[in-house]
């Protein structure tokens, strides 16, 4: 692209530009989708820590799967839900590389719950980026384990009824009952401040992995305007007003210890 890499004048300071670890290619994500933001933040962290060339990502079924189009590092697909198992295999064979998984709520908290819990419990030195947008995106807006009570989806057309469909699963809290994780944090793409916190959380997680600290999971509450059935702006408001009360933000595990 002609404008994106022009050299700044001596007196210029670049406040923001596309990170080098992000491929110069428009994404397939819907307008206002948080995946783009999450990708961008990961790319920024890879740039900041200068680890792009030693990073291997794992992207499973779902909207997450096409990460290899956008992130300029080695990436493997994984079968639905098996992302932490694939990441485990990679990391154990190449312990000096940086390995992250990039998973949606269906992948991580429904079909892949066993792999999620056991990778965390083994304290695998990997970073799990968990994009929680409360619905299945790619398959057409079905109910996810993290769908809010009363939220309408393709498979809860009258709203999620907790009496027969359960209630939203809080992954950070659940994993925080284990002894092994090193860092667990929930952030939200609910505005510029939230995005800056998400960037910092990812930086903490990847840096910790570089230092061999162990398992980290960053849950990112993220807009899926299409399947939340909202405009991008209202989807961001939904995160603030609907999701955050159900999924409280904060650091749950710091330096291997639960934060109380």
């Amino acid at each position, binding site marked *: *692209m002609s*404008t*994106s890499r022009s050299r*700044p*004048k001596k*007196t*210029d*300071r*670049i*406040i*923001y*530009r*596309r*990170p080098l670890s*992000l491929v110069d290619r*428009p*994404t397939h*994500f*819907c*307008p*206002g*989708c*948080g*995946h*783009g*933001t999450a990708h*961008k933040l990961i790319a920024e962290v890879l740039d900041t820590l200068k680890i792009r060339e030693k990073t291997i990502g794992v992207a499973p079924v779902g909207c997450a799967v096409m990460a290899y189009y956008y992130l300029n590092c080695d990436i493997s697909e994984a079968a639905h839900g098996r992302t932490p198992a694939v990441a485990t295999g990679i990391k154990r064979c190449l312990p000096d590389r940086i390995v992250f998984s990039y998973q949606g709520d269906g992948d991580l908290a429904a079909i892949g719950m066993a792999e999620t819990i056991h990778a965390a419990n083994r304290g695998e030195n990997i970073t799990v980026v968990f994009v929680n947008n409360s619905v299945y995106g790619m398959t057409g807006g079905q109910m996810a384990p993290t769908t809010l009570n009363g939220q309408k989806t393709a498979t809860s057309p009258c709203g999620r009824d907790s009496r027969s469909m359960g209630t939203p699963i809080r992954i950070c809290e659940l994993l925080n009952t284990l002894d092994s994780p090193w860092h667990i944090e929930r952030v939200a793409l609910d*505005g*510029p401040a939230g*995005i*800056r916190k998400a960037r910092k959380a990812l930086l903490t997680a990847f840096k910790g992995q570089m230092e061999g600290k162990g398992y980290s999971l960053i849950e990112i509450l993220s807009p899926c*305007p299409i399947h939340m059935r909202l*405009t*991008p*702006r209202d989807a*961001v408001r939904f995160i603030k007003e609907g999701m955050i009360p159900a999924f409280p933000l904060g650091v749950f595990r710091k330096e291997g210890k639960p934060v109380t």
Partner: protein
Amino acid sequence: MKARTYTVRIDRNRCKGCELCISVCPRQVLELSGEINPRGYHFTRAANPSSCIGCANCSDMCPDTAIELREEMNRHA
């Protein structure tokens, strides 16, 4: 005397017109263009660039990494 000015560059091909940048700009610098990009989206443009304070709300918020932000230091006599 030094004066800071800011340049907001929007990559019209990456922009999908979600308006999240517009929603977080404290100085109403941005607006949706009436034009359509090759992928069929209205895209954002900097309508009032001189009002920009370089806060980076827009570039941080943009899910499509379509915004580049620079600060220029202009020396005046």
